[in-house]
């Protein structure tokens, strides 16, 4: 003989199973909807649109900027390309880059590579966490490539385990331009007349501002901007 009062259990079981089933399906569905080709990947296809900052430094659209003046950009394959920004390049001038080796771990906000000029070197911070999967060998053959900071002058590529979390600590779009502009103004305040044709004349600063400004302690000046 079946007990009527037990009849409620199959229905309740089904209700709760459906609710739990929904939550489980939702996790997969959410990941599916959020995944795929990131928006930044489309920017890579086109020639980056450069926005002038104080007429000095440029930041293309689609690039994430770290306050230590390195940038990150997501590729369609999910890897993140890392480089230095226009500001860093113009501040240090012609330099050799000491790159991490492939397979090395890098962490956001930790020193990951260095810019070396004459006998001194300045550490720079990694914009993202991850493992280095590729290094731009062409830079050691031709250091001139570093001039194209957002293009051929890329430094290395990283496999990022948690880029979404990293990206929250990075600047993008208007906020990146604002940050670069503030850095430009901070630098302008330290410029001296002997630097030649600069802001007051409407000119572009020479490459290697730090060495012009503080020949003996240029690396210290650079470190103050690169947060190392």
């Amino acid at each position: 003989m079946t007990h009527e009062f037990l009849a409620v259990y199959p229905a309740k079981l089904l209700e709760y199973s459906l609710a739990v089933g929904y939550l489980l399906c939702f996790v997969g569905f959410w990941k599916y909807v959020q995944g795929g080709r990131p928006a930044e990947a489309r920017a890579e296809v086109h020639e980056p649109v450069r926005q002038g900052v104080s007429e000095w430094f440029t930041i293309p659209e689609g690039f994430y900027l770290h306050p230590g003046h390195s940038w990150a950009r997501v590729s369609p394959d999910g890897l993140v390309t890392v480089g230095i920004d226009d500001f860093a390049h113009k501040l240090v001038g012609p330099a050799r880059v000491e790159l991490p080796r492939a397979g090395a771990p890098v962490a956001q906000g930790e020193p990951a590579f260095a810019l070396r000029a004459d006998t001194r070197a300045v550490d720079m911070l990694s914009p993202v966490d991850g493992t280095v999967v590729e290094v731009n060998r062409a830079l050691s053959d031709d250091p001139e490539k570093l001039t194209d900071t957002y293009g051929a002058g890329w430094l290395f590529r990283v496999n990022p385990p948690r880029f979404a979390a990293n990206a929250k600590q990075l600047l993008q779009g208007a906020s990146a331009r604002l940050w670069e502009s503030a850095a430009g103004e901070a630098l302008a305040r330290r410029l001296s007349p002997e630097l030649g044709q600069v802001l007051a004349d409407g000119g572009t600063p020479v490459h290697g501002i730090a060495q012009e400004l503080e020949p003996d302690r240029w690396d210290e000046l650079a470190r103050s901007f690169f947060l190392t």
Partner: protein
Amino acid sequence: MTEATQAALPERSWFQDKILLGLTGKEYLKSLLNPLDVVAALLVASCGAMFVWRFGWGLGATTNLSQSTPWGLWIGFDMMCGVALAAGGFTIGATVELFGLKQYAAIERPAILTGFLGYVLAVVGLIADLGRPWNMVFVMFSNGTASVLFEIAWCVMCYTSVLFLEFTVPAFEWLGWRRIHRVAKSALLALTVLSVVFSTMHQSALGSLFLMAPGKLHPLWYSPYIFFLFFNTAVIAGISMVVVESGLSHKAFHRQFEGQHVDADALTIGLGKAGAVAMFAYFFLKLQTIVDGHAWGLLATGWGAWWLVEVLGFVLLPSLLYAWGARHRSARVVRIAGAVAVAGIVLNRLNISVIAYNWNQPNHYVPRWSELLLSAGLVAVGVVAFRWIVNRMPVLKPHPAFPQAH
């Protein structure tokens, strides 16, 4: 145009400039002589004629409504669907003004305009059904606070007024009334809060109406949680209508988007993500109503097949299409999903208020041609009014004198 050529041209009157788009009366009328405008004019005229007929001869002579079926297409489509499809006004308004997703600001004004026109036309359709519009004012002074209809009447009146006030921002820009424009613009945040409050109340209350008719509505559609389903579908309808409407606007008014740096596809894809998630949750809620109502057995009937068509074809399918489109960044697929979702909302509202309502009656209601014509005419009025306003006021493009206002 240079200043010299401007000076050489004869000065245009305010009417010619603002209303006739700078053309003379003759030129303007000539520009309206094209097949689409003629069809629209015929629909609008027949809608007017239907109104005269209905008010002159009464519901019994002009519709298939009866004592056993007092609610027909004018309630089921004009009111139930019109109000749901106009939910984009509060959905996008809240997205931009309250949640701070300012990138959607470019589609806020068209969404508010669509919402405003949708509500006005829903009310016009309701007046056609109710009759005696001069008596409507008494709903405001009746003491029917326990009535769902009282809540709907008040909320729809208040929300239509809020949408009108929100719409005054571009209207004042068009008129060039700077001082009052500033006042209207500063009130936008408060108006958005009100729009969310009123919409939450009456969108769900439209569903609560059916709580009084558990015996009349088919058990597959009836649920004690129907008010929540109505609110959920209103949000889905709001998102989907904005996707469809912005896609159509970009085609029809592409000239207005020239020189604007708005990535419409990116906005569409963003809306697609929201639509996918909202519809996915709604699909499981629909299943839950079946479990809750012990209605599994009814799925094997003809009504069950029709329910499955609605839930699989017009809920699950657009949800998956939205998800696919968002993942693969295909605005086209998201727009197709939006169109299927809009059709799904219309089907859902018609199922509840017309098709599966009074399902067990021997004589089932089928709308008369005159009811269909009036409803189609109202849609045509909406399209014509939308185009008239968009061609004149800064809805799709910012006003040159108010560049930051859009």
